[in-house]
């Protein structure tokens, strides 16, 4: 007999039928019915209508049935909070059951029911279960504290559960310790203040290290991850922790190994790099990392992404292990690409021959993406390992001979980089390249080829003809190619002015008159003016020596790398992004991790959570500037929790690269950074913005008529919304226009988009005499049930008094939801801006604003809209701003303003584009206030 029969149902009156079965006297029938209900739930049918009937089955002596009813409760309790109360008694009773399995089951399930009313009843049973004699119950209760904290953090703190949880860290049972540590880490992570609620000290760490030897593999992961957040007080302590953790490297579970690696990598920072201890430890790290490559492909992928970080942080560890990264035929493509990347990082003079012959092999594979990467890799090798450049070039030439279209194109792109890195060395191959001109159909390859022709125009006899042939289809080319072509022809003209005047005229006309692209036009005009006013200057600008491209261009920016090392094994380490870049909501930015430093002062060792604190203090500014300076001076990577701008070098490069074009810079700038550089970052760089400390003068709309006396049976209400000191308020003037006194006022709000509920009952002077007015203030909290309204800011209000109940709907100004902690870190802003798809960007115009950029900025600041950067582009002021709604949605905006022009252009970008309109309205209102 199988369970599948429960999935077959009669169509008609199914719910009705189940209802009667659930209420059947026969136990067997009852059980069958519950199974059918669960089966329906599993396939996604809504069986919430059966709630009371199912809950009635809860008091059963059948364990299987009990579990199913519990499962049902977890699923539907939220939608039926009032009825869920019915279940409380049974839960409380089950928490006292003689069987530990049932006690644990009850406390585990209760924690999963995210209904406030139930939560209140959970406290007492939970307190008991935390002290239960059975470790199975205690370990379940430990996790339950984290669940409760997630639902109601202050309750957990008020009820003293944190202390009880801390006590469990000394529990005699290792599994209880492990779960307690997992719960504590989670609670610390979520802490809104950014300050960990429970600090680890030497004693607790010692207890954890003892439990580490005895708990399950998962428990070991929890413990190791928690230890990785601890900063030992000195090098000695760090060493002793390392010693006790090293044996974990021999664990069969990859997660245990990687978490141990994380702790070791972090603690090694505290020791002198050439100390014997560190050297030995490094040796011990290599074999387990290599072994991870024989795990399941998904685990391999995680391991490889982490190895990529480790290789950048400590290149020595795996320097002799090149061969293990050779690609196997049956590796999944994601594994292949990662291995390729690591191979290049490990490439050096001694192993380059091997690497090259492998890469050449890969370049003849069939998977196009992989082949492309392999060809690019050869180019990267040439740039990285100078003595191998010649070999690489000849390998590339071999590949060009294959005439495989995409191989040729990739090869040309990388050869351009090689030319730039080693000028005047390999130009002899240009003729071979020119043979393949016709096959190039990808913009990047065409652009690269054009760049080569322009750069070496004096050595290519028919350069003018070649460029002219490209010019024929100028309008159909992509911008990238057009820009290259423009520059190349100007170069050609400067080198061979005699016979190319016509050509240059032609391209300048095309660029300046026939093109809609502002970049192209601008560049065309600049060249034109340069050439017509001062050809010598033009020469100096256009044919200037290009800055060398650096060898390791694809490295992660050091402070980011350090942060990621602290996140080994986690998603951040796989994405190579800080958690704040992809985790939304609470705890964001509260705990940026930093590596400990060796001799540094104690306070650096803390994971410096201060920066996540409330905004308005402008916390990061000074340190940010300091960091930029050290970066520019090529200073050593400082372990700092402050993100250094990753675009510093690329920004410089762009500037000094001058007119030579975006494309020719691309080899030196990894795509991510290039994009950042192309975005407003260049302007951000130099900008130091001054913000006034946040004032309380936020915008409050004038009161509006909400309930006319005619509709309110004499009660007239005008009102508005405000946000004062972080508190949302509804401010109402209530006037009694009737002849009789009014009393017994009460208010209720319908479910709304932001979950606003009254924080306190409505207080109105009672009685409200005829013709008397009263200024009522209702505090609101965004903690209630959420239901989407149309428009989003719609709020339905019911006001009751002794006469009747009155309903009316009002539209709330969006700005009352702008949270005080809406200031985004510059770098996060950039990456978020990029991450949000362009489709989510909405543009608005705001008219009649006669304010300077600074005035706008300070005005917005008062309303919790924070200016992240300001820059001036072609006379226009651009303000980049961030704000956060109380429900955790981030909104990024760009305000474009021209001095003297009262019309502003607002571009709003957010992951939840529904709020954009409301934001625009709010901006408009604030700016006109």
């Amino acid at each position, binding site marked *: 007999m199988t369970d599948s029969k429960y999935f077959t149902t009669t169509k008609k009156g199914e719910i009705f039928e189940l209802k009667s079965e659930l209420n059947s006297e026969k136990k067997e029938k009852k059980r069958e019915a519950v199974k059918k209900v669960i089966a329906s739930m599993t396939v996604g049918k809504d069986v919430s209508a059966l709630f009371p009937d199912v809950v009635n089955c809860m008091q059963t002596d059948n364990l299987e049935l009990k579990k199913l009813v519990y499962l049902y409760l977890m699923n539907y309790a939220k939608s039926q909070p009032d009825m869920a109360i019915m279940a409380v008694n049974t839960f409380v009773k089950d928490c006292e059951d003689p069987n*530990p399995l049932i006690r644990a089951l009850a406390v*585990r399930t209760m924690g999963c029911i995210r209904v406030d009313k139930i939560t209140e009843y959970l406290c007492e049973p939970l307190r008991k279960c935390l002290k239960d004699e059975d470790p199975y119950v205690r370990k379940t209760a430990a996790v339950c504290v984290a669940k409760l904290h997630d639902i109601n953090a202050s309750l957990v703190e008020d009820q003293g559960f944190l202390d009880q949880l801390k006590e469990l860290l000394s529990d005699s049972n290792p599994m209880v310790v492990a779960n307690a540590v997992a719960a504590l880490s989670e609670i610390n992570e979520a802490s809104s203040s950014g300050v960990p609620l429970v600090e680890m000290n030497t004693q607790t760490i010692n207890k954890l290290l003892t439990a580490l030897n005895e708990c399950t593999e998962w428990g070991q992961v929890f413990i190791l991850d928690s230890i990785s957040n601890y900063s030992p007080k000195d090098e000695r302590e760090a060493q002793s922790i390392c010693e006790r953790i090293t044996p974990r490297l021999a664990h*069969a579970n990859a997660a245990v190994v990687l978490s141990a690696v994380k702790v070791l990598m972090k603690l090694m920072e505290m020791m002198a790099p050439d100390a014997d201890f560190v050297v030995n430890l490094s040796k011990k790290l290599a074999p387990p990392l290599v072994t991870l490559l024989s795990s399941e492909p998904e685990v391999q992928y995680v391991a490889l992404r982490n190895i990529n970080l480790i290789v950048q942080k400590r290149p020595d560890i795996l320097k002799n292990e090149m061969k293990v990264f050779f690609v196997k035929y049956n590796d999944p493509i994601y594994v292949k690409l990662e291995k390729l990347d690591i191979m290049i990082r490990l490439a050096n003079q001694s192993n380059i021959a091997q690497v090259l012959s492998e890469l050449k092999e890969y370049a003849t594979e069939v998977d196009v993406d992989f082949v492309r990467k392999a060809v690019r890799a050869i180019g990267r090798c040439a740039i990285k390992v100078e003595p191998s450049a010649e070999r690489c070039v000849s390998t590339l030439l071999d590949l060009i001979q294959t005439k495989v279209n995409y191989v040729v194109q990739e090869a040309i792109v990388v050869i351009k980089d090689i030319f730039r890195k080693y000028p005047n060395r390999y130009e002899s191959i240009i003729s071979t390249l020119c043979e393949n001109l016709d096959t190039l159909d990808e913009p990047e390859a065409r652009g690269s080829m054009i760049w080569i022709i322009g750069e070496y125009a004096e050595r290519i006899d028919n350069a003018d003809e070649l460029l002219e042939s490209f010019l024929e289809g100028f309008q159909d080319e992509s911008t990238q190619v057009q820009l290259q072509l423009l520059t190349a022809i100007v170069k050609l003209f400067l080198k061979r002015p005699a016979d190319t005047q016509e050509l240059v005229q032609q391209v300048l006309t095309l660029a300046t008159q026939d093109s809609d692209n502002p970049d192209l036009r601008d560049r065309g005009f600049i060249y034109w003016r340069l050439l017509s006013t001062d050809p010598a200057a033009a020469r100096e600008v256009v044919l200037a020596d290009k800055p060398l491209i650096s060898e390791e261009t694809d490295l992660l920016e050091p402070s980011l790398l350090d942060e990621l090392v602290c996140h080994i094994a986690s998603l951040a380490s796989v994405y190579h992004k800080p958690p704040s870049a992809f985790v939304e909501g609470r705890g964001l930015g509260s705990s940026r991790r930093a590596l400990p430093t060796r001799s540094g002062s104690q306070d650096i060792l803390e994971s410096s959570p201060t920066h996540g604190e409330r905004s308005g203090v402008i916390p990061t500014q000074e340190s940010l500037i300091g960091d930029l300076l050290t970066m520019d001076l090529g200073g050593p990577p400082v372990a700092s929790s402050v993100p250094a701008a990753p675009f510093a070098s690329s920004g410089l490069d762009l500037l000094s690269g001058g007119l030579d074009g975006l494309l020719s810079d691309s080899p030196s700038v990894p795509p991510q950074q290039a994009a950042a550089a192309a975005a407003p970052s260049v302007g951000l760089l130099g900008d130091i913005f001054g913000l006034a400390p946040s004032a309380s003068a936020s915008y409050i709309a004038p009161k509006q008529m909400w309930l006319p006396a005619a509709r309110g049976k004499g009660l007239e209400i005008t009102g508005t919304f405000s946000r004062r000191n972080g508190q949302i308020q509804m401010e109402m003037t209530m006037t009694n226009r009737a002849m009789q006194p009014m009393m017994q006022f009460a208010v209720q709000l319908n479910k709304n988009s932001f979950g606003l509920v009254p924080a306190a009952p409505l207080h109105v002077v009672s009685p409200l005499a005829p013709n008397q007015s009263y200024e009522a203030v209702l505090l609101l909290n965004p903690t209630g049930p959420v239901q989407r309204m149309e428009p989003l800011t719609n709020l339905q209000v019911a006001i009751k008094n002794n006469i009747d109940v009155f309903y009316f709907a009002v539209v709330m100004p969006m700005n009352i939801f702008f949270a005080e902690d809406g200031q985004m870190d510059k770098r996060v802003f950039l990456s978020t801006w990029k991450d949000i798809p362009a489709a989510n960007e909405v543009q608005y115009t705001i008219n009649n604003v006669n304010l300077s950029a600074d005035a706008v900025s300070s005005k917005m600041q008062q309303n919790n809209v924070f200016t992240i950067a300001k820059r001036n582009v072609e006379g226009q002021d651009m303000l980049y701003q961030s704000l956060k709604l109380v429900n955790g949605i981030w909104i990024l905006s760009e305000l474009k303003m021209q001095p003297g022009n009262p019309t502003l252009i607002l571009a709003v970008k957010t992951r939840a584009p529904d709020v954009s309109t409301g934001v625009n309205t709010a901006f408009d209102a604030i700016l006109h206030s």
Partner: protein
Amino acid sequence: MSTSAIFILDVKGKVLISRNYRGDVEMGLIDKFLPLLMEKEEEGNLTPLLQTSGCTFMYIQHQNLYIVSVSRNNANAAMVFSFLHKIVQVMSEYFKEIEEESIRDNFVIVFELLDEMSDFGYPQTTESKILQEYITQEGHKLETAPRPPPAVTNAVSWRSEGIKYRKNEVFLDVIESVNLLASTTGNVLRSEIVGSIKMRVYLSGMPELRLGLNDKVLFESTGRGKSKSVELEDVKFHQCVRLSRFENDRTISFIPPDGEFELMSYRLNTHVKPLIWIESVIERHAHSRVEYMIKARSQFKRRSTANHVEVVVPVPADADSPKFKTSVGSVKYVPEQNVLIWSIKSFPGGKEYLMRAHFGLPSVTSEETEGKPPIQVKFEIPYFTTSGIQVRYLKIIEKSGYQALPWVRYITQNGDYQLRTN
């Protein structure tokens, strides 16, 4: 730090069963999973992680199922993937095969397992032996309801107390797999040995076991450096082995789980002569035929014999009318895999065999270029380890003082054994 929900989907992306652990994700989000996966696949940047609306899907595929975890926060990816594989393992031990059918047939048990194996997204008990003690197929009355076995929370979380056998026996299998990657020019690019010691334990009570190997580090530290020993490069142990003890004095001591398990695995990077070497000459005459000359040479001691040798040679997908000639063994064409398989039942050391194959090719060639899959070799050599590892002793101590017999077998087989072709 953890998983918000687990979904098991069929190949079309339909949810077979799901468990919401943290209540912080919209369960409807899973509908985005398969479209996203296909989109990424199309773009050619598919990874086992997919990102959408502030959440991350981490998934594995098993048979025709997707097992998907959704996380909202910066979860421990290594742990999540290990856990997903563990789910598959546990369910396989419960239902033999896991596929759409068996999930549906056992949905109640699956729910119970998912409930027990993870709490709030934190993996808990995942030892299927222990789970089977209190999550069983029959419904229970509460009076007789199972209690959590002590093992769930014990330091020894993998073995229950009170196990009894009439005859106490232990079987040890030392299995070494040889991984080889050879280039088209016949150079060995990479060769390593991945060894594993598998045990089948049928012992009563709570026995303490100690395993002695000819471990080089141990021998050197105890002054027996001259004896024949093996340098184990990276050793991984089952969770029952006391790791700190091994770290201190290289002693492998443990209380074993009951039944079958892998005690340890190790890796050696020593360069050994490839045990079976293949030379191939492939002549392609476009539009007419392709000819193969495959030479297989055994390069191990004459005393040993390789069994069940299979040389798997890739052939073009459009090849037809196969003709084979060989002195030893048999050859068959497996068109569904586009390979020919040359099987040799018994292949003694120091021998060399030859096989020729001939295929016709169509005069019209397909547009698609084919990859160049490598030649693969499968084999098994009993009573032999490449590394020379030896079990010196297995001490079994139990307080009741019974005598138990350890049986040891050695076997060497192919691992990932690939020789690239032109």
